[in-house]
């Protein structure tokens, strides 16, 4: 009962606050902008044809209607919430009759797949490598790994991804330049093989960055664990080193890493957006790039909203799993 009251309910409240702030910001930002999206859309629509004044007025009216710009700010805000709760994000500007929700629906699984897989790989890899490097700080391999990852860590995602792109699609054309798969979607080996083939470089660029971050943190945690009493006792008891590292040290460094995973999901997601832009991977990031190039505000707003809700929910889920892992929270 106390677990519910002291842990779960506050987390749920915080989740609701995040959603509220996120939706309000996506509502307010376009309305505070000096540029009127309607005028821009009108400009684009009328660029190649002339319309009669009545038709222009009618067009303006229907655009105002479509983009929820009717009435004063408060009713607009309430309508916006209503549409968000119904999952109706309006039509896309650039692919007009198609709704934003449909387009996001087709892109989101690519992003979730890429993001989920590379997060799991990077988290495990960073944890194990960091634990090993923290426990054996003086070995040549731990120093080599540390120096490499520490120098990669501060480099912006875009640049890491772009360098990989230059190296492996241009100078050594091993991997494809754009796309997510080849052939029609099916459960055949050739299709799944092409998924791996096309996804490899985007995933690699994400894994490199995320592993470096996890490694630095995990190494710091492991080197404090190393000087604690239980490790000393285990060493005196002559337990095999491998067992000390994997069964005791890494297991204890895992706990803070779970909390931190919830906090760093946003950063990993941003990395995924950029990676998709660089590699032309057909997920949300690619949709976003197209939307930027076509000034498709509805699409950008939809993706912003969805990413805030999605990341907040994902980190809520990670946090709710925490009591399953940490007995201290469970039995408080």
């Amino acid at each position, binding site marked *: 009962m106390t677990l519910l009251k002291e842990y779960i309910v506050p987390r749920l409240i915080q989740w609701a606050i995040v959603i509220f702030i996120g939706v309000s910001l996506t509502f307010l930002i*376009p309305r505070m902008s000096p540029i009127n999206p309607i005028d821009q859309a009108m400009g684009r629509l009328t660029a190649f044809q002339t319309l009669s004044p009545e038709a222009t007025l009618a067009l303006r009216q229907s655009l105002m209607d479509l983009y929820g710009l009717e009435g004063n700010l408060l009713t607009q805000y309430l309508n916006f919430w209503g549409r968000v709760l119904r999952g109706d994000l309006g039509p896309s500007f650039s692919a007009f009759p198609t709704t934003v929700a449909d387009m996001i629906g087709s892109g989101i699984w690519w992003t979730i797949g890429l993001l989920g897989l590379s997060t799991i790989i990077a988290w495990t890899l960073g944890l194990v490598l960091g634990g090993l490097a923290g426990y054996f700080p003086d070995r040549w391999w731990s120093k080599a790994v540390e120096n490499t990852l520490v120098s990669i860590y501060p480099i*912006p995602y875009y640049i890491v991804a772009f360098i990989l792109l230059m190296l492996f699609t241009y100078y050594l054309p091993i991997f494809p330049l754009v796309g997510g798969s080849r052939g029609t979607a099916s459960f055949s080996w050739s299709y799944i093989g092409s998924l791996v083939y096309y996804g490899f470089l985007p995933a690699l660029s994400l894994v490199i960055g995320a592993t470096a971050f996890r490694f630095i943190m995990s190494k710091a945690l492991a080197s404090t664990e190393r000087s604690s009493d239980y490790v000393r006792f285990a060493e005196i008891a002559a337990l095999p080193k491998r067992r000390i590292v994997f069964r005791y040290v890494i297991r204890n460094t895992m706990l803070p890493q779970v909390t931190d995973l919830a906090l760093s999901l946003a950063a990993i997601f941003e990395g995924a957006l950029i990676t998709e832009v660089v590699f032309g991977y057909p997920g949300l990031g690619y949709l976003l790039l197209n939307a930027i190039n076509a000034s498709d505000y509805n699409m*950008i707003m939809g993706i912003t909203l969805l*990413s805030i809700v999605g990341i907040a929910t994902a980190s809520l889920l990670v946090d709710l799993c925490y009591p399953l892992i940490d007995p201290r929270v469970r039995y408080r």
Partner: protein
Amino acid sequence: MLTTIRDLFRYNSAFRYGSLILVVVFILAGLSFFSPYAPEARRVVPRAAPPSLEHWFGTTSQGQDVFWMLTFAVRNTLIVAGLAVIIGRGIGVMIGMISGYLGGRWDRFLSGLVDSFIVIPRLPLLILIAAMLRGHMTLVALGVMIGLLDWAIPSKRYRSQVLSLREREFTNTAVFSGMRSVKVVVREHLPFLIPFLLADVVSGFLFAIGLEVTLSVLGLGDMNAQSLGTMIYWGNYYQSLLANRVWVLAAPIAAAVLIVVGFYLASVGLTAYLDPRTRLARLQAKG
């Protein structure tokens, strides 16, 4: 202060290499004031020439000298990042100190707000703002925007520092001798935060440079000004890779990597210096 820097320089290799790189970077940025060409001037040198003695980093297909472009780009990127850092850390310090010092209801409210902001992905929000301001974006606006979105994590750090400072004896002395809360926080607590601020400023630079590059590469920055991101954007726009003019892209990429690694190494050195555990180890080594 100066002796600290000298000691760091002498004994901490990360800080030494980091600050050497940064000196090179700042010299590069300073050279922009002596550039023979205006930043936006085109067709002033032979087009698409590879690096040579005359044009160190080659020229672009638009007839710009890559080396002098780079000096402007480094300067502008540093200006954007500096502005973002000042604004972000300013808000962060203020909220952290208020929340840590007042405690109670205010602390719960502000901490809830800060925790919520940490979870929100900032890049989509920034892209939304930048897309709305497209064409009207200036370097200053970009810096302000990045700063306004980067205060949550530092403020958490300052809050925990102030929380521990509040329990110290001198806080009670100050309060009992009738100092006002604002004065206690600013005069007594702020000086203790400065070393942390210093390390944090550096990580703020890293974040801001990364965002500047990302936004400009997406075509959302101030596309008429030279910055590391816009140099890459225009390089891609004019197909530098396919036309075998790699130097156009290599220069901004190498500069970006150099700057962030320099800042990062310097911050690693500073953090190691500030960490009380390593300081103890240093004292033992001396004695």
